[in-house]
């Protein structure tokens, strides 16, 4: 059937089988390859996107369930890579293989949207559904704290953009 929704602010209309997961519409119909397939059963979080502002596993969302919805993928997290999380991920050099990181970033973005300055415990809870097979968790945690600081600085108008400067220590990082 035909489903119309918004992806990263732009309208999209697709005609696929009703049971097609949003993940495969994004990847194969709309050619947005940033959202990744990891498990297909909502266990790994690699396919996390925002639907009306809430993080969902796109492998578990039938396309019919997003009729009229606003979907944001990693490609729409910012127009230019300037989201504080993207800057923090680069500064701290989070990825190893990098495959899970789009999903990590989308889960982290949803966390920061509702909890601007999360504790380690809040980070662990919010991020526990996102598997990183390379186990970059320590840097993910540090980068979320760093992004929270950047975001606060941006809001105060004193934020330094970009990710220049030496990579900083991963230990002793406090929110």
């Amino acid at each position: 059937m035909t489903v119309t929704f918004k992806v990263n602010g732009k309208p999209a209309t697709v005609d696929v089988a009703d049971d097609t997961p949003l993940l495969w519409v994004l990847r194969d119909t709309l050619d947005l390859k940033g959202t990744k397939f990891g498990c297909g059963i909502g266990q790994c979080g690699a396919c996390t996107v925002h639907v009306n502002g809430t993080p969902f596993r796109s492998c578990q969302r039938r396309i019919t369930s997003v009729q009229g919805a606003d979907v944001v993928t990693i490609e729409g997290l910012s127009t230019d890579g300037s989201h504080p999380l993207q800057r923090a991920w680069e500064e701290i050099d989070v990825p190893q293989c990098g495959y899970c990181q789009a999903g990590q970033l989308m889960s982290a973005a949803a966390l920061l949207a509702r909890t601007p300055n999360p504790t380690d415990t809040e980070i662990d809870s919010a991020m526990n559904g996102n598997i990183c097979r390379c186990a970059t968790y320590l840097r993910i945690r540090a980068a979320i704290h760093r992004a929270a600081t950047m975001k606060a600085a941006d809001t105060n108008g004193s934020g330094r953009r970009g990710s220049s400067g030496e990579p900083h220590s991963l230990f002793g990082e406090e929110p």
Partner: protein
Amino acid sequence: MTISARVDRRQFLRVSAIAGGGILFAAQLESLSAGTAWAAPLTDDFVPNAFIRIMPDGMVTIVAKNPEIGQGVKNMLPMLIADELDVDWQNVRIEQAPLDTTKFQGQVAGGSTATPTNWTPMRRVGAVARAMLMTAAAQTWSVPEMECETVHGVVTHRASGRKLKYGDLLGKAALVTPPDLNSVPLKDPKDYRVIGTPTRGVDVPSIVRGKPLYGIDVTVPGMLYATFVKCPVFGGKAVSANLDEIKTLPGVKHAFLVEGTTPVTFNGLVSGVAIVADSWWQAQSARKQLKVTWDEGATAAQSSTGFTAQAAELAKQPAQRSLRKDGAFDSALGSAAKTVEAMYYYPFISHSPLEPQNTTAHFKDGKLTIWSPSQTPANGRRIVATALGIPEADIAINLTRIGGGFGRRLTNDYMAEAAWIAKQIPEPVKLLWTRDDDIQHDFYRPAGWHYFKGGVDAAGKIVAWRDHFVSFGEGTNFASSAGIGPNEFPGRFIPNYALDTSVMPLGVPTGALRAPGSNGIAFAVQCFLDDLAHAAGKDPVQFRLDLLSNTPIVDPPPPAPPAGGGRGGGAPVVFDAARMRGVLQLVAEKAAWNRQSLPRGTGMGVAFHFSHLGYFAEVVQATVAKDGTLKVDKVWVAGDVGSQIINPLNAENNTQGAVLDGIAEALAQEITIEKGRTVQTNFNNFQLLRMKQACPVEVHFLKTANPPTGLGEPALPPAIPALCNAIFAATGKRVRALPISKTDLKWS
């Protein structure tokens, strides 16, 4: 314009002017040995090895030849070239090379080999180019070269202060006779500007923006999507299937019964059914309607419980082989003050890289083009050529970024499947496995059983050690990665020592999982050492230091290398006990070992292991609640991988990842076999580490005057026994079988 200077039969450096006014250096290097005894590269092709392209604006493109699986090699190899070339890293652009055995050697991600094999050759590539640019500048100024120097991509004449940028020297440099690649001067390490500098991953900006990078992201215009269904029983064959019905389903374009190669070769084309559709979801939907008649074959009689029973039987009998025998074990054990007997077991586990297996392929006009996330593309090409019966010369392989390797993509079964399908159809095709396909059709880390007996004398010194290692294989051959070497520690360090092995046949594919062999052996050996330390009433660190201080037995020149094993082919590598003592002392100091009193239920454990030329000692602190709930509090790591950490930012990340990978394996990972098939299916029943389980990992590198070696693997093995030994320190409970989740840790 091309200028060739043939230095000798094995060296060759070509400089070519290229479009846009740049020049290109293509260096053909001698066979790579890195000057140390270690396993031969997986490919023996001898060919040009690296490229540098310098443009008039001073921008430098460096080609990264090896597959990037997250180990950071796409930074590391170009960093070696850039430093000796003396250019600024920010002016370097990196290009991923395709498979090209005429230009590159060793395009492999495996065995932590990239550093030791490339450390000297890649620096030489950069140094030769730099020397030519310097010669060109000296000629321009009519001054002796020795009066010139380079930095930041600029040649300076010291006396006059005159400067020329590399970009201004290209025409002249192309005319310079290249210096001898083997004797070109290399930098004093104190002058490194790129090597040793924290350098961020070159693909990270693309990763955080969701740009297509991985095999699964490849798009070829007009391509179809495929799913490939294999027999649940390993080695089984597809006899028939309802293909006519499948072909009528929505979107399905083709469906095939695939006979597969005979005899069955897991790292090749396996029998099954391929469904090709307009979209992958349609192929998956059609798969749900698929009915296949399988010939399950002999492996259907195998199971994990059966293996365990066979291992117990084999352990009761005389060992099939003796791999090492020093002194007289039986009499030494008989006269020991205290003896310990224990069996340590580790299960099959899966690699489970997060990007499911995939390959895109297009067969057109007799030529096959492949895009694949492979750790061994050259082997993949051979396998595809065999499976399809076409010459290797007609197969081109593009390397994509790889969503995790861990050894799974050392085998190229998925590449063979995609290539076979592509050859049957006119359209390009992307094959993608499901997670279930991946977990159920892996090349598993083989299970292993170590039946130990050991004894200590009245002074607490180990006087006798025997390991009857029960594993998989046939005759004198171990199954892939199921072997052990005769020099495995503590061999040579105990006067009365026996390493015996027995094997049973296995129909389940096995293969190298990150730190193959070591990831199980270290658990068994380092935990049994802890058993003996406890029996001797000694501190576990001091007990190990004492053992490492024994004068090692010097072996006569080795006979034929042991068969198989997947642990570096059995090349005799000399274990340097002094280096291990160094990291053991360092980690004990950093962890404040024995300098604090921990509450009951909290304990520290220590372990060390030597693999892939790296020396690692680790301390784990763990807390076990009275109800048995385990929490890993922290890991301290000390590693010695030689004189230089090439990219400290990546080295820390990779080491932390390896340690946490080991913790993950120890905590909960197990693959079980029933009726010849894998029971586990996905991440709900094969548990990967999650954020809440990720404890701090503090990494220290001890730099020693040894050639730099690799970091992808050697930090993993000690984490597992260090954790188990910490549990013992915390609770008095000894974990003798992995995963730890199978042991009841309750205490009161």
